């Protein structure tokens, strides 16, 4: 089939697909256009590395027109309003929620939905008093429902904490009642700031609706100048900025390309990093210099984001399979997560990668010292035999404490996000304080991000984002569902064995 016919066929496939909503079809059609136009130069050997799946652009396409992840300064919206949207600074909870809902509609991202909707507790708490708390609960619940039903993509993420606030508690209560996948939620957790009773409430909520997750606030708050937020799956990025792009390296396939371990470190890995960095340079340059966003979008012109607070994310996936393959190539027994030699090799790979990425300068990445920032990418629905980021493969999880200590070896390599998921059985789920003990221990052994849900939750974490099991079942039976992440969830359930993740007992 020639190219034109292939494009027509793909277009027809989209418009005839009865499992797609109107909005999903529209977005897929727009994605098609982004694949067909090439506006920035591609590095030499890029095509081969894409075809051998060493590098993957995560469907960003070749004509970037907005940053992938934007974390607007919502404080500014509350303090000064927004001229472009003709919003005055809100004076009460109702107006604040309304202003945010309006604003969200205008925040671009790779999915066209906002991936960061703010530190919701801090944004709203100022408007809650003893007198209006009952009303606040109703408003917050309807606000969150509005988000779930209009932002049809669970890469939309809100933050709470580290302090306990009235708004934070109301958000947890509402999430328990709503049982919705959207938004994703993270507690910026610092055991020295966050009271145990609030953290326990967060665990209790997480066990019933898979959110919030727990981020190591102490570490994350030190890695960028200024404030940070957790966006999309678990991406730690500067507020008032974000990330231009996320391109990922499939480490296993880089190992496939290598003759042996020595060749991997001496040739395959440095080469793949060099090509990927050049590709990212080229894409970012176009986005910043030529696309309209950084010149005319109201987020820029009104200062909701600052070009100096952006970087680009260098994603990594499949460390586990990479290490296992390199072990095989050396003829040494032992698998990632089960052998000190393998785990140490994993550290070696990450140290090499960290040094290579840190050696590459990009003038547009001022938020991270003119460097790209490493990210443990969670995978995509079509990945096969590729574990997210630096995670141990599903089905091979070691006992809980061993698993946590192993994960703790790798989280420090990923300033812009990494995470592991530990579902618990229902007995453990009845004892959230025990799980909080484990989370505290996890932070001590180096984890930066801990997610949990219970074996009987409807809302579950797929790899980084949330989906309702009941929606996956509906979609699997051919019924359209409004949230596009359900499609990804279904793929990950089939290819990534997400439902077979080891459930922990206590």
């Amino acid at each position, binding site marked *: 089939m020639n190219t034109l016919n292939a494009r027509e066929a793909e277009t027809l496939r989209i418009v005839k697909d009865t499992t797609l909503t109107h909005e999903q079809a529209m977005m897929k059609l727009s994605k098609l256009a982004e694949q067909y136009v090439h506006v920035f130069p591609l590095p030499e050997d890029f095509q081969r590395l894409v075809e051998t799946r060493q590098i993957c652009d995560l469907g960003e396409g070749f004509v970037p027109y907005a940053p992938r992840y934007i974390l607007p300064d919502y404080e500014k919206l509350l303090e000064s309003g927004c001229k472009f949207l003709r919003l005055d600074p809100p004076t009460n909870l109702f107006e604040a929620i309304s202003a945010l809902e309006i604003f969200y509609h205008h925040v671009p991202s790779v999915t066209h939905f906002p991936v960061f909707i703010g530190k919701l507790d801090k944004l709203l708490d100022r408007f809650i008093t003893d007198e209006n708390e009952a009303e606040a609960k109703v408003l917050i619940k309807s606000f969150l429902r509005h988000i779930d039903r209009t932002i049809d993509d669970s890469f939309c993420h809100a933050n709470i904490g580290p302090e306990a606030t009235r708004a934070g508690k109301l958000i947890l209560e509402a999430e328990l009642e709503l049982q919705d996948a959207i938004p994703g939620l993270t507690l910026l957790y610092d055991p020295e700031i966050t009271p145990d009773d609030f953290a326990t409430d967060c665990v209790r909520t997480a066990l019933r609706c898979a959110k919030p997750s727990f981020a190591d606030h102490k570490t994350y708050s030190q890695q960028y100048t200024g404030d940070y937020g957790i966006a999309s799956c678990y991406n730690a990025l500067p507020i008032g900025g974000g990330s231009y792009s996320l391109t990922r390296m499939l480490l296993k396939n880089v190992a496939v390309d290598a003759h042996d371990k020595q060749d991997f470190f001496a040739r395959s890995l440095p080469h793949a990093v060099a090509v990927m960095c050049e590709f990212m340079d080229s894409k970012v340059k176009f986005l910043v210099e030529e696309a309209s966003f950084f010149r005319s979008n109201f987020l820029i012109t009104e200062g909701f984001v600052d070009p100096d607070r952006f970087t680009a994310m260098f994603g990594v996936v499949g460390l586990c399979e990479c290490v296992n393959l390199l072990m095989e190539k050396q003829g040494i027994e032992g698998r990632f997560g089960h052998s000190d030699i393998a785990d140490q090799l994993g550290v070696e790979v990450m140290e090499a990668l960290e040094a290579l990425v840190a050696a590459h300068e990009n003038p547009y990445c001022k938020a991270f010292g003119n460097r790209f920032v490493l990210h443990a990418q969670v995978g995509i629905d079509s990945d096969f035999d590729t574990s997210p980021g630096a995670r141990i493969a599903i089905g091979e999880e070691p006992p809980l*404490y061993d698993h946590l200590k192993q994960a703790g070896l790798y989280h420090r390599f990923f300033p812009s996000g990494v995470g592991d998921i530990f579902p618990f059985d229902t007995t453990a789920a009845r004892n959230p304080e025990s799980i909080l003990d484990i989370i505290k221990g996890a932070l001590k052994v180096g984890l930066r991000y801990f997610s949990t849900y219970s074996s009987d939750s409807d809302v579950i974490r797929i790899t980084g984002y949330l989906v309702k099991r009941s929606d996956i079942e509906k979609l699997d039976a051919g019924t359209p569902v409004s949230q596009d992440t359900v499609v990804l969830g279904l793929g990950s359930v089939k290819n990534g064995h997400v439902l077979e993740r080891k459930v922990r007992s*206590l």
Partner: protein
Amino acid sequence: MITAPVNHIIPQSCVDGPGNRSVVFFQGCNFNCRYCHNPETIHQCQNCGLCVAGCPTGALSTENGLVSWQEELCVGCDSCLRACPHGSSPRVSMLSTDQVMARVAENMPFIRGITVSGGECSLYHAFVAELFTKARALGLGTLMDSNGSYDFSADPQLLALCDGVMLDGKAFDPQAHLALTDASNQMVLQNAVFLARQNKLQELRTVVALGLPNEETVVGFARLLAPHLTRGDVLYKLIRYRASGVRTCYSAQLATPPMAEMERLRGLRLFKHQHCIRKKPLLPKALAFGGSGFFMGWERSACETAGGSDRWRF
């Protein structure tokens, strides 16, 4: 060097005291509870060797007249337990406190403390005191899960090292207790009051089964303790009997109570000032308990409890 027979150590438990804890189970008990669901922990191994031949993986052998168990070969099929005529287990190791602590320390920093259980932990009180000293040095909490047969009032050193005792209130009536456990409950009742007054009663537990005087036990313990609860919260946990693991010679005497019976016991009105919180709010505000010497209220929190038990709070 003190050693004690240890049946097993579990690295993580959320049902043996507050938070996540490692639990040390000793071998040997001075009670013979009809409803015991791990009766193989009651007696010491007699080295009769009857279990050895039935071991499918060769984990058991006899050396110099003693049964020896190789943990790394064991698959946990329990055929040795079924073969044992003495209500014991060959899978027991004599361990020093250092050996136990080495196993416990592997579980840090994920645990907030250790709990010693059984069998009956107080049979090894000197060992427990030494173990608790070492656990505390690592910053770990220390709890005992005891049948209450040991005179805690005579061992202030142990009590000072122990954060609290989770005490079994198996039966309030002396005859009922004797029939259930082959042992007197005089010391148990004395301990309940003593520990409550010392603020060392971490939790009181009663197994509820058809065939036992449940109401009398619950009412009896509640009335006994009420005047002494001057120092804060005590949890009263009602555990629903289940037949799993119970010796067949006793299992006919007892039956799992219907949920309605658990509900009825929970709903007993024992005190003028008692109030029962029927449904725990999802995110309760801090509830004020204790300090007054009688039931301020009792909290029903089935959603928070472990393994089908119900808890009340004095």
